[in-house]
């Protein structure tokens, strides 16, 4: 069953059709990898679905509802969350505060001016619990700006996860971290996503990561979908291997 469905979604920047009439589907419960070379339109597609950009044409349906014209806030309330390619944190707040603030926002408590944030034990407990899941509990008091790149990537995902989304977009969760750190990060992320019954879409360039962790792969090229299939199907897809992977090698 489709959780998300875009129909002929299009975005142009000047003469460049960054996303060109794309029909993209995400099924409930899967971990889908979105691959493609730089400029293929992956991040633009996620920006359109998450509401960062407005589509020029086409429709986006989520859980059966048309969300094409909805605001970012409405999409978050509907259950769509995302992390960012370039880590987007609140650098002058602690790791704990980054997560706690997200929980306050999710619960609609950020409207409160007369209660002390530090007195909300339920939010504090949930924040620590999420940080523990991501292995960041020891870093709870550290300002986000002072974390290592790997920790920042994890915190970025933890913030999105704290929204308790139905559909989570992870934009290059392992970019900018050392090869040694990539697998542990993906192990943590995929374990949490699967145990939380979250549908996830991961944009990733590292093919080892893609083939190892995803249930299905969608390959994009020049704003359009080039191929869609299981990791084995994509591995055998000659068009993908020549266009995206370059030499016909798949892993």
């Amino acid at each position: 069953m489709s959780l998300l469905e875009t129909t002929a979604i299009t975005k142009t920047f000047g003469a460049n059709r960054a996303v060109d009439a794309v029909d993209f589907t995400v099924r409930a419960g899967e971990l889908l990898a979105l691959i493609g070379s730089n400029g293929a339109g992956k991040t633009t597609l996620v920006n359109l679905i998450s509401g960062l950009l407005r589509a020029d044409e086409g429709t986006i349906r989520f859980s059966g509802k048309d969300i094409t014209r909805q605001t970012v806030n409405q999409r978050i309330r509907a259950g769509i969350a995302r992390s960012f390619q370039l880590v987007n944190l609140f650098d002058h707040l602690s790791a704990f505060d980054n997560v706690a603030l997200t929980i306050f926002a999710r619960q609609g408590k950020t409207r409160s001016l007369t209660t002390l944030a530090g007195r909300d034990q339920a939010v504090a407990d949930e924040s620590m619990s999420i940080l523990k899941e991501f292995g960041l509990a020891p870093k709870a008091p550290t300002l986000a700006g002072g974390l290592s790149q790997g920790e920042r990537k994890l915190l970025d995902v933890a913030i999105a996860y704290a929204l308790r989304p139905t559909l989570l977009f992870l934009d290059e969760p392992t970019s900018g971290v050392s090869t040694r750190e990539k697998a542990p990060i993906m192990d943590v992320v995929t374990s949490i996503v699967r145990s939380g019954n979250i549908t996830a879409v991961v944009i990733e360039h590292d093919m080892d990561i893609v083939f190892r962790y995803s249930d299905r792969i969608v390959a994009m090229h020049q704003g359009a979908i080039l191929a869609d299939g299981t990791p084995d199907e994509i591995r055998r897809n000659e068009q993908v291997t020549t266009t995206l992977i370059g030499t016909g090698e798949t892993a």
Partner: protein
Amino acid sequence: MTELALASPRVWSGRRVVIGALAVGALAVIPAVASPFQTITICYGLVFAIAALGFNLLLGYTGLLSFGHSAYFGTGAYVVALLVKYLGVASMELFVLAGILGSIAVAALFGVVCVRYTRIFFGILTLALSQVLWSLALKLFWVTGGSDGLRVPTPTLLGGLGGPGADKVEFIAHRYYYYVLILFLVATAAMWVIVSSPFGKALQAIRDNETRAEFVGVQVWKYRWIAFVISGAFTGLAGALWVPLNGLTTPDILYWPFSGRIVFFTVLGGFRTFVGPIVGAIAYNYLETYAVGFTVYWQLVLGIVLVLLVLTMPTGLVGTAIQIFERVRRARRP
């Protein structure tokens, strides 16, 4: 890099409580131990501190640098003066209420325009709008008294319980000082609750990363507007308290250099700490008072101080004091 600000009970740490209690105690005994001149100088400082607290909700907590806070200070002052002129009101409580409501109205209106923008665009818009009010105060002289301004007599406090009496200096240096002190403490406590609330944390998130704040569900534009209005209300309260102290309001209080003074208070004390703007406002008021008495080129002195401050103490007086304290504490550790 190890501050746990949001959910830690350390926000009420013993040291902070002791320092706060000592500061309040010192402020409470000033009329008894200091000359009326010193008490009145502190009284001005407390009034400016309320304005700086309001201003810093935007600068320090929301990341918006306003160059137009004279608008809300001046609105508070002029609303009081107009109440006196047209309605003959003498009650300080009504002055305070009307000053706050007037500045809320102006800030709510200006905020709709300003908070859609950030950085230099926000600063320029706030500056331009404040100059509209200054121009109105200057040109509508039959209402505002033009450049002569409007006089405000000594008010009655607490429904007449604290009347002005014959000696204005004695009134200002004692009863009015305590009145201002209590409102300053209430304003400080209210601002502390606001910045420590989930709303206050959302403002800090907007300051740090507007895009991410939106993607965790914070309605950036709306929250900025609310912060803008609250900031205006605090500054308007300060204006309402200032005008009986000064006895007169003129368009100068709406002119852009006064907005610059509010920025100066905050930068001097340090906008990255809660108490920085308070310390900065009181320190600036002393600095200006003595610089004016010392030389006719007092603006030059203040300018040099500001340049030196930015170059040598970018975190302000309080920020620098905290850094020194932390260094000493680290050095003492075995």
